[in-house]
Structure formats: structure tokens, C-alpha cells
């Protein structure tokens, strides 16, 4: 399968890339690793008259802690997350997420920024970033702005990014001590999109009570789902078995999956509940509770 014709642009700087997007508007798409975009173009599910390849812009791939945030450059490939000592030692939730995205060959090309900017509710990073309370940094003609992740996903394959904006960085607040997170995904086989998936991140206070809880669900509706009701329920409570079970039940209530070959609505919602409970249990363990 060959995509329909388009013009390919390989800008050397972000400013150049933004001005190309500004010039071509809705006709242009950003190409990063291409592991979502190229299959879409090949299957003719999507079309673009112009592809702006940001893969040749230096300085867009990095993983570092700076200014109280973990900063991930948009063009960082998933394989780099897997190999990063910082991620492996301090952010197991991100490692777990990267390891279940597609397969190792795709992860050598697929980027973290692309996984988010694509706006696909079946992608895995959105749930994790919702749990972690990340911020998206975007660059447009007017300069840079940050978008809280909870306001980033606006519809199916749609984000808060304007057509002339490029996602440049993901910022995650460095979790205080007493924090932990985990990602759980149910898939039929390696490389499949999630039947259901849940990310949980918690910070425990001195008495072992939940100070902050973040819960995100994968493939549970037209956009990635932030399970607010469950998050609010957990705050101030000791995360024992019964509390986690109730939080997971509330999280599953936020899920609005559709039936397909991966399962019925009832099955997927039940799996969201089970996975949310597992993710919460492991997050609490990693946070040092029990």
C-alpha cells in the first residue's frame, strides 16, 4: 500500500517547522516517528498534502530532570525510555508503559510526543500521563505555551494543539517521596491495542493516607479517560483493600468503551475495574505503603 501523494518537508529548526505548519494549515501533518501516521496514510484513513518531518530537528530527543520536572523531548523514541537509567530506576510506570507499546521494532521509531499528539484513546502514554499529571509544551507562531494533560485530549484523534503548533516536550512533576505508579494493560497479543488499560500514580502522606491519586484509563472511550471520581474518593483515605476496590469500581464507572472484536462493553468495563485495582495496588506498594 502506498499513500497518496504529498509534499515532504524536512525543516532543520523548530521555527521553520512551525512556519511550514502555519503556511499549510489543516493540509499539513507533523511527521515524527511515523508509526501511527504512515499506517493511516497507507490505509488512506487519513490524508495530508504536506508532511513536516520534525525528525531532523536537533535537540528534540532527551530525558532529564530539570526545574522540578522530568522533561521528555517530543522526539524521544520509546526504546530510549526503555534504555534510560533514570526511567528504569525512578519512573517504573513509564517503563511499564513503554514496554507494552506495539513491539520492539516499532518502539525504535515511535516517539513519546507522537503517542500523545496522535490523540488516539487506544494509545498507552495518555493514561499514564493523566495519572502523573503531566503538562504538554507546545510551540506555535506566537511562542510557547503549556497545556495541562487533563485539557489536552479534546475528542477522538483530536487534541488541544492548533494546526500550527508542535508538541515539543512533556513535563512531569518529579514525584515527592512516598510516591509510586504502575501501568496495567490487557492485550490479546504483543502489539495489540489495549482491550483495557489502567495507569495509577499515588503519593502517600506521613500516616500512609493518600495525598494525591492520579488514574487514567486506556481505550475506554472516545478520549483517554481521567477517572476523577475515583481520584477524589481516594484522597485522605488509607489505601487498604476495600478502599482500592471501591476506587477501582468508581474508575470503571468513568469508562465508556465500545464493543468490538476485543470484547463487549460490559467485559471491557469489568477489565478496566480489575486493571485499575491492580495498578492501584502496585502503585501503593511502590509508594511504600504495605
Amino acid at each position, binding site marked *: *500500500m*502506498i*499513500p*497518496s*501523494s*504529498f*509534499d*515532504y518537508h*524536512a525543516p532543520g529548526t523548530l521555527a521553520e517547522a512551525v512556519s511550514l505548519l502555519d503556511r499549510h494549515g489543516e493540509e499539513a501533518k507533523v*511527521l515524527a516517528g*511515523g*508509526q501511527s501516521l*504512515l*499506517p493511516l*496514510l*497507507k*490505509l488512506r484513513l487519513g490524508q495530508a498534502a504536506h*508532511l513536516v*518531518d520534525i*525528525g531532523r530537528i536537533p535537540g528534540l530527543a532527551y530525558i532529564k530532570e530539570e526545574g522540578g520536572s522530568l522533561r521528555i523531548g517530543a522526539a524521544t523514541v520509546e*526504546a530510549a525510555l526503555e534504555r534510560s537509567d533514570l526511567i528504569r530506576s525512578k519512573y517504573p510506570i513509564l517503563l511499564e508503559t513503554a514496554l507494552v507499546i*506495539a*513491539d*520492539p*521494532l*516499532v518502539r*525504535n*521509531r515511535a516517539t513519546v510526543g507522537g503517542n500523545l499528539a496522535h490523540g488516539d484513546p487506544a494509545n498507552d502514554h495518555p493514561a499514564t500521563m493523566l495519572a502523573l499529571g503531566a503538562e504538554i509544551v507546545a510551540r506555535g507562531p506566537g511562542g510557547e505555551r503549556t497545556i495541562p494533560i487533563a485539557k489536552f485530549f479534546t475528542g477522538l484523534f483530536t487534541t488541544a494543539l492548533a494546526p500550527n503548533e508542535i508538541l515539543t516536550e512533556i513535563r512531569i512533576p518529579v514525584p515527592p517521596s512516598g510516591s509510586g505508579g504502575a501501568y496495567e494493560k490487557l492485550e490479546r497479543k*504483543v*502489539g495489540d491495542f489495549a482491550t483495557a488499560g489502567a495507569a495509577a500514580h499515588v503519593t502517600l502522606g506521613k500516616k500512609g493516607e493518600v495525598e494525591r491519586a492520579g488514574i487514567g484509563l486506556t481505550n475506554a472511550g472516545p478520549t483517554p479517560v481521567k477517572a476523577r471520581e475515583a481520584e477524589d474518593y481516594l484522597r485522605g483515605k488509607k489505601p487498604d483493600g476495600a478502599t482500592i476496590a471501591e476506587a477501582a469500581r468508581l474508575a470503571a464507572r468513568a469508562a465508556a468503551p465500545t464493543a468490538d472484536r476485543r470484547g463487549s462493553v460490559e467485559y471491557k468495563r469489568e477489565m478496566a475495574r480489575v486493571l485499575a485495582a491492580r495498578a492501584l495496588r502496585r502503585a501503593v506498594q511502590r509508594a511504600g505503603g504495605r
Partner: protein
Amino acid sequence: MAAHKIRVTVNGTLHEVEVESRLLLVHLLRDVLRLTGTHIGCDTTHCGACTVLLDGEAVKSCTVLAVQADGRQLMTVEGLEQDGRLHPIQEGFWQEHGLQCGFCTPGMLMTSYALLKRNPKPSETEIRQAISGNLCRCTGYVNIVKAVQYAAAKQQ
């Protein structure tokens, strides 16, 4: 419109070609450069038959544009054998009967090659994880794992 002059080094040889922007890397290799060892399987980023190395990383060449490879180094299955001698990874697939129909083999070889470069002594689990994006529909995975282990031992 949409034509680009690109320079790619494939198995050590520099090629300068003019390509359409929508040309996929696998078609550049097979149809333009006539390196037909790289197979097209599913053409949908699943099967890994088209795996080649792009700057040393194993990638699915059905999901990379030829223009994205401009200025970069490629290695295909044709680059494994040197002076008529099989590479240890090829020898492993031969000795351990790591193929039946052979369709997935070029991709399996390239993924295994990249694995052993990064991790010369992989465990069985690491081998299975590394080839999890390469599908063998003869389901000959047991012997494929043995073949990679053979090559790892031979390269020690």
C-alpha cells in the same frame, strides 16, 4: 512535484537516487535498488518481514519513508554474508533449522543481528522479547530461538 534526491548507504555502498516523497523504504530497497532479500509481508507494521537496520536500529521498512532515510546508513539481509561466508546468525538459522518456509527469515535475521550487537549474551526471554515484532507463521519459534543462541555462542 514531490520528488527528492536522496543519498543512502546500503550495506556500505552509497546510492544517490531520486524518489517520490511517498515512496516507502521497503520499495526503495526492493524496486529501486533491487535488493529483494527484504520481504514485504503484511505491509501494515505487524509482521516484521521487512525489518532492516536504519543507523543500526531494527525498523519495519514498510513504515518508514525513503526520504526519511536520506543521509543515513542502512543494512539489509544482503549485508550479512561477507566474502561468501555466512554470518554467524545465518549459520545459526541453518544449523538449528530456524526456518521452514523462510518468508520471515530476513526480518528475523536482522532483528537478531541488532539484538546481539546490543546484547551479546541474551537470555531466552530476552530473545523472545526481541523477536516479538517478527511473526513466523510456520510457528518455528523454538528453533529460531535456538538459532539466535547458536549465533550468540559462536560470536563469544
